[in-house]
């Protein structure tokens, strides 16, 4: 199927724009005198999430100055869907390769890039001296970048999607040699833009090798292919972590799930779904896998109208796996909501730091595999009486404090709220919340109950020993 006329037109316009900009920008001096000797871009389109692996061989060609950072460029649409950028510096040859993680941050040089392209800078751990080369491995993840086309499919059709990108690497630097590989889940590729040299081998399309690309060059390509992997999108996830110093960490997760693929239209026939599972509803999914910490206990899986009985839990020594099935198979555009809750032993997560403060070490992100979380809220409910909470998260999140009330609280529990949009599996990294806690507060509630019962008995005794009648009964 050829790409529609309109998309072709837009692509052309974009192409023109970018070539124009490339020309206009050519006059600008290359940043820091850096040049990309060779670039390899591998785009993984097999899942619902687009993962792009860049291998950049960077050389500092400047005469005297050291380079402290390497810039990466993204188009505005990419930035909107960009979930995470990770960079590492590769050292050594082949077998002995080691990777040193590098910090990446959004660059404020964005204004200097043409057409609203955004720049991210990879901060090098050691300055790159003139004449030296370095190999960078960059991974970035794009969500919601696969557009289903046709946008509505019936039960028996499989799902086709568009992916848009550039054949050449968008970079503020001069690129000497570059190649792009696009990997697709199946052999069924409806169409792809040809930018010679282009070749296809099985499930992979190769663009390149292109040499001597000017900075900021962009050659739009469009790939139309079959992708029946579950497009599970968690529209909203609220994770609530309640810490009890009596030995338990209780985690409750409220999910609002959607099938983000091509919308289902018309009839849903259970008969066909059951009798021909391979053809019928190929893009639908009926189960999800959640990876939970080891030693998890009292797991539940329910929604607002009660238990959902279709789940399996496998507890291992390194991780636990919870396989859950929503109440009904999810077809394109269908929604469902559910709640997962589980308890964890406190000693696995709570530690005392050297200064006497305590910190809890938890995993950020969503335990469901291969899902995008549009809107993640993590609430860490500290025990009543804890003070000065201080979250430490390795990436930027929105943070604020709340007070929540639970079983017999009087002053309320301090709650640290962390919010982040566009979260993917790569965000599942540990984060910490440090706080001060005086163990005497653990006894507050038992004492309260004991005194209440005591008062009750005192009141009973008093009532039995007092004569409350007004008149004297004979």
């Amino acid at each position: 199927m050829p790409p529609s006329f309109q998309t072709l037109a837009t692509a052309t316009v974009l192409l023109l724009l970018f070539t124009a900009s490339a020309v206009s920008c050519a006059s600008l001096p290359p940043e820091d005198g850096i040049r990309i000797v060779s670039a390899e871009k591998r785009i993984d389109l097999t899942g619902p999430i687009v993962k792009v692996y860049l291998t950049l061989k960077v050389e500092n060609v400047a005469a005297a100055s050291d380079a402290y950072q390497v810039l990466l460029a993204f188009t505005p649409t990419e930035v909107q869907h960009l979930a995470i950028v990770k960079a590492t510096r590769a050292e050594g040859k082949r077998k002995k390769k080691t990777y040193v993680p590098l910090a990446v941050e959004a660059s404020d040089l964005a204004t200097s890039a043409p057409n609203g392209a955004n720049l991210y800078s990879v901060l090098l751990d050691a300055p790159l001296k003139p004449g030296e080369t370095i190999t960078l491995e960059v991974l970035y993840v794009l969500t919601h970048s696969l557009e289903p086309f046709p946008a509505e499919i019936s039960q028996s059709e499989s799902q086709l999607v568009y992916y848009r990108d550039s054949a050449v690497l968008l970079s503020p630097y001069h690129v000497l040699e570059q190649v792009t590989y696009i990997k697709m889940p199946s052999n069924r590729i409806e169409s792809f833009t040809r930018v010679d040299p282009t070749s296809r081998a099985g499930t992979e399309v190769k663009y390149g090798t292109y040499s001597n690309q000017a900075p900021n060059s962009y050659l739009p390509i469009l790939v139309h292919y079959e992708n029946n992997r579950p497009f599970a999108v968690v529209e909203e996830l609220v994770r609530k972590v309640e810490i009890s110093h009596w030995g338990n960490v209780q985690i409750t997760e409220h999910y609002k799930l959607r099938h983000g693929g091509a919308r289902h239209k018309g009839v849903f026939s259970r008969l066909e779904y059951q009798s021909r599972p391979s053809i019928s509803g190929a893009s639908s999914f009926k189960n999800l896998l959640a990876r939970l910490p080891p030693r998890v206990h009292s797991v539940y899986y329910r929604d607002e109208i009660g238990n959902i009985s279709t789940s399996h839990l496998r507890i291992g020594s390194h991780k636990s796996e919870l396989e859950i099935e929503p109440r009904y198979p999810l077809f394109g555009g269908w929604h469902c909501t559910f709640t997962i809750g589980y308890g964890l032993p406190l000693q696995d997560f709570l530690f005392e730091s050297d200064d006497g403060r305590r910190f809890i070490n938890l995993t950020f992100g969503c335990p469901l595999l291969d899902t995008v979380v549009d809107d993640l809220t993590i609430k860490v409910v500290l025990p009543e009486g804890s003070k000065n909470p201080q979250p430490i998260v390795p990436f930027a999140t929105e943070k604020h404090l709340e007070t929540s009330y639970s079983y017999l609280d009087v002053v309320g529990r301090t709650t640290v709220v962390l919010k982040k949009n566009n979260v993917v599996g790569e965000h599942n990294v540990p984060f910490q919340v440090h706080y001060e806690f005086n163990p005497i507060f653990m006894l507050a509630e038992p004492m309260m109950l004991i005194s209440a019962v005591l008062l009750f008995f005192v009141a009973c005794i008093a009532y039995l020993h007092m004569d409350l009648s007004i008149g004297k009964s004979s």
Partner: protein
Amino acid sequence: MAEPEASSAAANGGGRLRNAFGGVLSAFTLLLIGVLAFSIRLFSVIKYESVIHEFDPYFNFRVTQFLSKNGIYEFWNWFDDRTWYPLGRVIGGTVYPGLTLTAGTIWWLLNSLNIPLSVETVCVFTAPIFSAYASWATYLLTKEAKGTGAGLMAAAILAMVPSYISRSVAGSYDNEAVAIFALIFTFYLYVKTLNTGSLFYATLNALSYFYMVCSWGGYTFIINLIPMHVLLCIVTGRYSSRLYIAYAPLVILGTLLAALVPVVGFNAVMTSEHFASFLVFIILHVVALVYYIKGLLTPRLFKVAMTLVISVGLAVCFAVVAVLVALVASSPTKGWSGRSLSLLDPTYASKYIPIIASVSEHQPPTWPSYFMDINVLAFLIPAGIISCFLPLSDASSFMVLYLVTAVYFSGVMVRLMLVLAPAACILSGIALSEVFGVLTRSLKFQLSKLFDDSSSAVPASGDSSSESSTNSTKSENRNEKSETAPKEKPSKKNRKKEKEMAESVPVKPNKKEKRLLVLPFELSVMGILLLIVLGGFYVVHCVWAAAEAYSAPSIVLTSRSRDGLHVFDDFREAYAWLSHNTDVDDKVASWWDYGYQTTAMANRTVIVDNNTWNNTHIATVGTAMSSPEKAAWEIFNSLDVKYVLVVFGGLVGYPSDDINKFLWMVRIGGGVFPHIKEPDYLRDGQYRVDAQATPTMLNCLMYKLCYYRFVETDGKGFDRVRGYEIGKKHFKLTHFEEVFTTHHWMVRIYKLKPQKNRVRGKLKKLKSGAKSSSTLAAGRKNPWQ
């Protein structure tokens, strides 16, 4: 009359320490009974989950959710547009608010203590909590009649009576759950007032009655039973000022309070259900006047006055009665609601109101259901009645009257078995405690004769059985003394009953014991053992009933097969699908059984629901279901329906599905729209959907929606509920499309196809269609012709 008090007073005198010990012991026993009542009802939570059960509880749950979210004032004014589309329903004015307010208050209280329980959890556990209260109320009531021992026994029996368990397992969040407590407690306060003559208790009684009115429509049972008892007391010459205090405030205060409940309102003074109480109120005053005058005048003067008053009074009475009768007769239903009428005339409902008759719990019970629901109590009741007559007090006569009326009502409607259960428990408790009293007393007597000849008056040990035996010895002795006087009193009717009861087996030795007072050693040991076996049997049965028979929530079904437990969660699957994947304002049509669940779980607007207040509306849905596809489409389309939901059990063998209920849809539909005729759906009077079925049956919408593409599952179309192959196997739907079917096919949801553009060539066809539909919808215009 005053025996229980006297005996308890005597017990009070007999040693402070022992008394305190007994008090603590019985308090502790009561606590345990409460725990028992609560925990035996948790089987449903343990075996299934903490979830609201069945149909009506879902409505109550939804109302409670609304109450907890919006507050009490919004609740009174709540007009629910999610149901009975397009009519809607005024919830605040048509619901008995007692249960909702109770659970709402509990929830509010807990949350103000920062205990974050959800509304659902509170609702699930309301019924078990109130059954604990009910067993305590039973203790109090029986104690008023026959003392502490009988009270504890009755409370323990009530805590686990299957009949009550069936309505109050955790999750069964229904009016009856709190109403039974209110019923027993009202009776207790009435009897307490009757025994003490205290205005304080009389006022409490009115308040408790008010709570009962708030909780359940069954309050009319109270307001008819108490007048009956008052009348009985008057007739048997037991009028006293205590009776007056027990009754008069209840009628005045109770009626005023009852009128405050929106759902009752002026019905409290205008419907025939309440007239008996007013009539007795008048009679009571007349009798009070007579007694007053009798005290003033000499016997001779009194006789003269009597004849005068009676002649005048009779005339006035006749006039009043005539006016009343005329008033009542002028209304078509004689001022009685359909349900009450069917109580008096059991055949009324099935004759005139199919919608009442279609509910299985409105059917008369079968004999096995008595055994299932009250088990061995059925055999103990006669003994209890007899011991109520030995001696007959106001309280014990009330018990007997309560039992007799409850037995009648339970025979009419299986649902009212619930009202019988407390009466059965109380009388069995009395019987068991009396029998135990006699047996242990004779045992002790024999033992003491064996060891030393001197009869020790004071028991050595403080253990409970001996203690209760001494208590009952004392009361027994007292009874013996005063037996002669009240023995003459029971009317002929009561004597006859007594004779009847005496014929039943377990009573005979009991009667003998009364005379002899002491039984041989072996016989008493045997008797005690047998009673323990009987009790054990009862307990085993109750636990079985609670665990197996009554704890299934019915929205999730399980079946045990060789490869483990299999769960059928299709209802919730369908409701969850509706709730997440349809537009929030879409209307869903289904048979009324699923109305409450659809509004509560799927949050979608329904056409009819379990509050069957509008028969025509239900008949419209019934007609649509029993019409051919096109006519049905027109009816549904005129009601703005977008989805049609049917319940189909043929694939997995779920018997209470829509095909089995279908005949009621035909009947109810045919009751309003005469073109639907029941014989059209029956072949030789037999209801079937196999090859023998009538074409009308095989072409109606219900058949088509249930069996659409069913034949493709196994190639034959074998229906596992009906046990045969279906009649029409291959057909297509033209006006509906399948949008969702659950995993086990138990719920199927269809969408109405949008109207087609008018095609010229089809004009002829349309015309013929118009003809049939004009006869069909009785003047309803088809919008697109």
